[in-house]
């Protein structure tokens, strides 16, 4: 069964159409990417999936259950987690309090100790800074905190919205390696939203290219030639 299916989503901000028609499927334990230029509707689509924005039409299915009308916090307990653009750590809370907040949901609360252990193994640098205020962390550490907070809810699917934004290449490389590890070991399904086409295609097994609110091209990395991707990406 597919882990997450986004079907024919349409979403507007007032009169402005942000997503015109987009369908995306993440297979169980799979890793897919969505790429596109600024303003192509990627973030809106992620916010629709996480429940922050209600679509005007279309469906969001999580493991076969229709969650289109579910509140964002209920989706978290159903196993869907979004790491929003920029991470959005709780700046005035310590790193560990940030992480524990991720396990607020009752299902995750029961295993919060194990989850914390797991997260600290994944990002050992956070363990050293666990009592530090998240607002005083570097950009990369803040992103790690945000990812870890999402992991603390014990999700089956995680959506990452441009997690490389504003980070040093080396930091990004490290974070992506951790995500690969997570996907391979824990069988967490992952969706990456990226502007870096090459990295996204290298990292994932299936790529969607979005332009002006529509999916204009999709396929496995080996099926997509560079010319085709370029043409779709820029709308040539």
């Amino acid at each position: 069964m597919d882990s997450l299916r986004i079907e024919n989503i349409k979403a507007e901000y007032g009169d402005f159409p942000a997503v015109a028609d987009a369908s995306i499927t993440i297979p169980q334990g799979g890793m897919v990417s969505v790429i596109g230029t600024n303003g192509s509707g990627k973030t809106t689509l992620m916010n629709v999936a996480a429940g922050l924005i209600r679509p005007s039409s279309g469906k969001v299915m999580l493991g076969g259950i229709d969650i289109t009308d579910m509140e964002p916090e209920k989706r978290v307990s159903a196993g869907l987690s979004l790491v929003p653009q920029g991470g959005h750590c709780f700046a005035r809370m310590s790193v560990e309090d940030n992480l524990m907040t991720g396990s607020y949901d009752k299902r995750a609360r029961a295993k919060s100790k194990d989850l914390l252990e797991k997260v600290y193994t994944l990002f050992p640098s956070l363990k050293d800074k666990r009592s530090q205020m998240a607002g005083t962390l570097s950009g990369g550490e803040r992103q790690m905190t945000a990812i870890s907070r999402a992991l603390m809810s014990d999700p089956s699917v995680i959506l990452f919205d441009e997690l490389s934004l504003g980070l040093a290449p080396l930091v990004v490389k490290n974070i992506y390696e951790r995500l690969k590890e997570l996907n391979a070991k824990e069988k967490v399904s992952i969706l990456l939203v990226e502007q870096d086409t090459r990295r996204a295609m290298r990292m994932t097994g299936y790529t969607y290219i979005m332009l002006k609110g529509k999916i204009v091209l999709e396929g496995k990395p080996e099926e997509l030639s560079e010319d085709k991707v370029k043409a779709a990406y820029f709308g040539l």
Partner: protein
Amino acid sequence: MYVLQVIINGILLGGVYAVLGLGMSLSLGIVKLTNLAHGEYIILGAYASMLLQAWLGIDPFLSLVISVPFLFFAGYLIQIFLVNRAMMSGSEPALLVTFGISVILKDAMLLVFGADARHIATDYSNITVDIAGLSIPLLNILLLLLSGVAILLLHLFMHKTYTGRAIRAVSDDREAASLSGISVGHTLAVACGIAAATAAVAGLCVGMKWTWYPSSGGHYLLIAFVIVVIGGLGNVAGTFIAGIVFGLMQVIGGASYGLLISYIFLIVILTLHPHEALIRFLDRMKSTDRQKTANGLSGSGFVTVKTQTEFKSEQKESSDAT
């Protein structure tokens, strides 16, 4: 000796003022709601303790076992059914709703209890204790202890429980909180319930210390505002210190000048920011050890509201790091 007596009286009285400011600090700092009905909550708490003492014949301090949960649920329900809805359309509609609740509560209390002055008296109300030549009212000591316990419990709750962390998270970033599985509306209502529950404690203090009328809420609301401004929004330790500063000013100024001095002090705080100068000074002292500064920012409040100086020094730090 006289000076020492005055200072000790002020400090003891400060506990009462700190509790008065505590709930307001929660509403303003965490829920970002100017709750104009908070004064009425306090008076409602005083009536609750008075009635419980009269009906059940229990000690007023024991009445908190019932009045605290009662005001918690009242605050929770008012928030979830009335104020949360108004807050969706902005802070002004919410302000007006709390003003309406304030008027309704005040008139309801007038209708039920009449306009008479009330006071909660006990056998030990007038006992004074002699310590090292100073005569200290026993009641003041008990009230300071009560306020200390209330503040400590609240601090632990905010830092050690899932709900406390959720309240801080919602205060910090509502969207990120809901993405962490937290229901924002419910959490805001819990925070307002706790603010109302502190009003039950404040009401008991007011009732045992002074006399009150159904219309006394406005007076205590104003005091709560002053204490929140002096102590910093949402800052538990700051609220406690502000309460003590306020208590000292009341005792030094006496009945005639106490409030005048406090409001002049408030104007000084608002215009000259002496506390920011103090923070800047402390920052300079601490900047030798960066790690310490970072840890120090955790503060002792449940939410440390950043002053401009703190923010600037943080920014400087992060630019140093890159």
